[in-house]
C-alpha cells in the first residue's frame, strides 16, 4: 500500500509538472507579449513596464518557468512584496495574491461539490438499484426514460427555469448565495439548495443508468447465480453479492467526477453567480489574468490526479482480487 502510494505520487508529480510546463509555455511564450495581452485595451507603457518587471519577463522563458515553479515550493520576492511558500504570483487584474484568492474561493466549490455529490450519489444509486430490482417492470421503464431525458437537460437550461419558478414567481426560496457553513449552517443549506439540485440533475440521471446497467450485469454473473442456487433470498443476494460488484465502475466514475468538480463547477457557479473556483476561472480568462488562470488550472489538475490515485486505492477495498502493485 505504501509503495503503491509512493509510486503513484511520483507519477502524479510528473504529470503535474508536465501540465504546468505545457500551460506555462503556451501562456507566457506563445503570445508575443503577455504583458500586452494582460493589459487589455486601455494600456499605458507604464503598466506594461510594471507587468514586465513583476513577471521577470526580461529573463529567458525557461528561467521564468523555473522561477515560477520554485516559487511554489520556496516562495519568491515580487515588486509588490514577498510572496510566501505556495506562491503562484499576483493577479494581473487586481494585484491580489493568486494562492490567497484560490483559498478564499475554495469553500464555495467544496460546499457545492459535496452537497451536489451527496444528492446525485444517493438519488442516482437509489433509483438505479430500484430500476435493476424491478427490471422490465413499470417502475424500471419510468426511471429509465426519465433518466434518459434528464441526462440531456443542460444546467444552463434548467437553472434559469428553476430560478424563475421557485425564486422569482413562487418566491419559495431566496436567491442562491454562498454563506459560510461556520457562520450560519441553515443559511448555508438554503442558499445552496437550488445549485445542488440543478447541478445533480444530469449526474443523477447518469448514475441511475450506470447503477442500473452495472447491477443487471452483476446479477447475470455466476457467483450471484451460485448464491441463489444455495437458497439465499433474493434480497441477500442483491444487496450483499451483486451490489458490491456493481460498485467498481461507479467508484471509478465517481472519483473522476469528484476530482473535476473540486476544480470548479463552472457552468453551475456561473448560472447561479456563486463565488467559487469556476467563476474565478471564467472571470480570469475574460480578463486574460494569466497568473490566476495558471493557478486555478494547476489546482484543478492536482485534484483530478489526486482522485485518480484515491480511486485506484479504493479498488483494493471493494474488490479483494485487486492487488496494488
Amino acid at each position, binding site marked *: 500500500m505504501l509503495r503503491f502510494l509512493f509510486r503513484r505520487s511520483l507519477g502524479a508529480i510528473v*504529470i*503535474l509538472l508536465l*501540465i504546468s510546463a505545457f*500551460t506555462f509555455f*503556451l*501562456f507566457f511564450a*506563445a*503570445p508575443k507579449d503577455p504583458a*500586452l*495581452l494582460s493589459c*487589455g*485595451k486601455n494600456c499605458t507603457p507604464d503598466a506594461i513596464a510594471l507587468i514586465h518587471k513583476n513577471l521577470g519577463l526580461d529573463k529567458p522563458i525557461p528561467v521564468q518557468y523555473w522561477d515560477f515553479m520554485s516559487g511554489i515550493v520556496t516562495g519568491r520576492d515580487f515588486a509588490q512584496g514577498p510572496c510566501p511558500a505556495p506562491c503562484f504570483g499576483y493577479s494581473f487584474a487586481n494585484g491580489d495574491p493568486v494562492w490567497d484568492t484560490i483559498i478564499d474561493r475554495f469553500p464555495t466549490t467544496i460546499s457545492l461539490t459535496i452537497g451536489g455529490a451527496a444528492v446525485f450519489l444517493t438519488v442516482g444509486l437509489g433509483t438505479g438499484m430500484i430500476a435493476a430490482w424491478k427490471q422490465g417492470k413499470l417502475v424500471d421503464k419510468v426511471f429509465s426514460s426519465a433518466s*434518459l*431525458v434528464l*441526462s*440531456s*437537460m*443542460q*444546467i*444552463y*437550461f434548467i437553472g*434559469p*427555469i428553476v*430560478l*424563475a419558478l421557485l425564486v*422569482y414567481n413562487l418566491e419559495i426560496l431566496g436567491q442562491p448565495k454562498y454563506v459560510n457553513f461556520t457562520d450560519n449552517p441553515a443559511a448555508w443549506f438554503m442558499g445552496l439548495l437550488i445549485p445542488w439540485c440543478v*447541478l445533480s440533475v*444530469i*449526474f443523477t440521471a*447518469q448514475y441511475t443508468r*450506470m447503477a442500473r446497467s452495472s447491477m*443487471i450485469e452483476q446479477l447475470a454473473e455466476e457467483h450471484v447465480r451460485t448464491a441463489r442456487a444455495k437458497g439465499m433470498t433474493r434480497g441477500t443476494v442483491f444487496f450483499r453479492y451483486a451490489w458490491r460488484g456493481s460498485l467498481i*465502475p461507479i467508484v*471509478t*466514475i465517481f472519483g*473522476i*467526477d469528484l*476530482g*473535476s*468538480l473540486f*476544480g*470548479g*463547477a*463552472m*457552468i*453551475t457557479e*456561473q*448560472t447561479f453567480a456563486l463565488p467559487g473556483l469556476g467563476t474565478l*476561472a*471564467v472571470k480570469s*480568462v*475574460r480578463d*486574460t489574468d494569466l497568473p490566476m*488562470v495558471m493557478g486555478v*488550472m494547476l489546482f*484543478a*489538475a492536482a*485534484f*483530478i*490526479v489526486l482522485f485518480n490515485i484515491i480511486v485506484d486505492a479504493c479498488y483494493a477495498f471493494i474488490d479483494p482480487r485487486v492487488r496494488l502493485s
Partner: protein
Amino acid sequence: MFQENSARGHFAMTSPSQTAVSKTDTPGLGPDGLSKGKDRKGGELVGRSPGQLMWARFRRDRVGVISAYVVLFFFAVGLLAPVISSLYGKDPYTRYGMLTPGLLTNGYPTQPNGGISSEFWFGIEPTLGRDVFMQLVYGIRTTLYTAVAITIASVLTAIVLGVAAGYFGGRIDYFIGRVIDLLMAFPNQLFFVAFVPVVGAVFVAPEDAMPTWLRATILILVMWFLGWMSLARLLRGQVLSLREREFIEAAKVSGASPARIIRRELLPNVVTPILVQTTYMLPNFVTSIAGLSFLGVGFVEPTPDWGRMFANAADYYRNDITYLFFPGLAMVIFIVAFNLLGDSVRDAFDPKRAR
C-alpha cells in the same frame, strides 16, 4: 460534454462498446438474421455481409429509426439554413424590433409569449429585437458544423494513434500511452475555457476583433486536442488483441505489408467501436461548444450560436422566459434523439447485448 462532469465524458463512454465489439467476428446470425422467408430465393441461401445484417436489424428498431430521422432533421436544418432563411424571409442579424416600432416595449416583446406571431414564429429576442427562429436555425448550423469538424478530427487522430500503438507496440505504444495519460489528467473544461483566448492571441493582436472562422478553427483545435484519447485507447486495446489472431498471422505469412494489414485486415474489424463511439462523441461536443459559448468564450455576438442563445437568455429570463425555451427544448430533443440513436446502433451491431 460540457456538463460539470465533462472530465470523464470520454471515460464513461468507453464501456458500452468494449463489450459490444468483442462479438463482431460472429455477426449475429441469430434468430433475426437469416430465418426470415424472404432471405431465401428458390430455396437457396443468400449470403449477407455483417453490414447488411446490421442494417436490417437497425431498420427493425422503431425507436432507432425515429431518432435517426430526428437527428437527420437537425442536420438538414443546419445545412439548409440559408434556404430556410430565404423562404422565411428573415435573417438572423436584422434587428426587427428596432426597425418596426411597437414590437418591443421597454425592450421586451409587446405581445405575450415572447412575441410569437405568424410573422415571428418563435417570437422576438428581447432588447435586440432579432428573430428567434432564425437565431436558432443559424445557431444550430454553427454549432453542428463545429461539432462535426471536431468529431472527424478526433476520430481520425484516434484511429491513427490508437491503431499505431496497438499494432506496432513497443516504444510507440509506450509513448502514445503516456501522452494519453497526460492529456487525460488535464482539467478539460477549464482547459477549453482557458485556451480558446490564449490560442486566439497567437493569431490576432488583442486590439483586433477575431473573425468568426478563426474562432471556429480555434475551438476545433482546442477541443480536438483533448477529444481523441478515449477512442484511441479503446482502439489500441482492440488492435492489441486482433493482432494476435490467425487471420493477421496468415496475412503476414502471405507477405502483406503492415500498411495493407492495417488497411485491409484491422480497420474493417474496428469499424463498429468507431461508429458507436462517434455517436456518443458528437452530442458531447455539441454540449461542450454550447457550454463554452454560454460562458462567453466560445462564439460571440453577432455570430448566431446555439450556446450563445443560452448566454443571452440568462439576461432575459426574469422578464421573458419564452426565449430560453426554444434553444433549450431543441437541445434536449437533439441530445435525447442522438443518445437513442447511439443505443440503437450499438444494439444493431450486437443484438445479444441486453439494454
